[in-house]
């Protein structure tokens, strides 16, 4: 396996699951698919459209997001918002992320 491909695989493994947390945090403010894609990219989370769109529906099905159709504008859009369950999960995941960060820091000899 070429070196950059290997690196890409490791990065993908490490980042798997971070998109879910990012979505739950960003969607405290209601937003729709394409804008969310754009926003995630701006914050530095790389995710493909064909991964994100099905993911939003999966999270909705799990009760972590709620959705509403906004038909005020000429183009109707489905707005997602983090539910109470989603907020609770986001807190748990954030906490876990912080613990991992602390663990890495102590591993590297920082205090």
């Amino acid at each position, binding site marked *: 396996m070429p070196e950059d491909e290997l690196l890409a695989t490791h990065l993908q493994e490490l980042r798997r699951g971070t998109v879910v947390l990012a979505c739950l945090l960003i969607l405290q403010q209601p937003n729709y*698919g394409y804008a969310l894609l754009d926003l995630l990219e701006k914050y530095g989370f790389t995710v493909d*459209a*064909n*991964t994100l*769109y099905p993911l939003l529906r999966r999270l909705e099905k799990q009760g972590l997001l709620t959705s509403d159709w906004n038909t005020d504008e000429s*183009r*109707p859009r489905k707005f997602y918002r983090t539910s109470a369950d989603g907020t609770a999960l986001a807190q748990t995941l954030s906490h876990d992320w912080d613990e991992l960060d602390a663990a890495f820091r102590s591993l590297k000899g920082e205090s």
Partner: protein
Amino acid sequence: MTLTDRYVDATLRRLPARQRPDIERELRASIADAVDDRVDGGTDPSAAELAVLTELGDPQRLAAGYADRPLHLIGPALFLDYTRLLATLLATVLPAVAAIVALVRAMDDADAGTVVADAFGATFTAAIHIGFWTTLLFAFIERFPGQHWVINTWTPDALPEPPSRRLRYTELVLETAATALFSAFILLTPVVSTEKDADGDPIGLLSPWLWDTGVVYGLIALVVVALGFSFARYYGRWNVPIAIGGALATIACSILLIALGANDRILNPEFIAAAGWSDDANRWVYIGVIVAAVSTLAHSVTEAVKQVRKG
């Protein structure tokens, strides 16, 4: 019909009907948003559409994402159970099928070629069926909605027993010695014999037909190949190809012997006459060969089961 229409259609076609209207509306809006974004950036509209759809990728993959369908036939949770079951079935059923078909055909007094061809044909068909149905079963389990199937929860009890290497080595030495004696005996029969013809030349115990057709060399080759697989099993790691290869060599050997016995191709008629044996000699040899072949097959089946269980 625009490119987007075709893309959306291709995606929706693979989704349950009740999900379609909602996903269609959202997908169209998302594509339109992405296209608008690119057009605002100065891209030509049709080029923008092409780029957006290219980025979205294979519609079938997108639909699998929406429907939460796996993109593999058999996933990692089931794969080991799948290969174990497949290996067990192949290693046990195939020799049994080969033996039964060869026996039945031989009892019908079919000629050697028919016995061998039918036995191999049946074995091949059985192998295809086992492979197909087992795969289908597991692919179905993989797709059964809302269930997480675990056929076997692994515990340390399932660890292989430490094999008695000395015992296996003894077996290997015995098998090697048996193969060498068997081959030497067969190859020497034409030149070393208790009976001589009028010219004082030895009359071979075994049918000259075996040498004329070269079948005898095929038989010896099979025995040697089977021995080779035993060595591979002893010195290498046991794996499915070696197990199946060894089983096939044993099956081929047994079938060939049964077929030869069925057609009175083993003993030399001249030898029977010269030694004054009764005409029943052929029948007794045939029965002996069948007993030996069947017990060899039974042995290789039980060995395979043991190995697969440990593997």
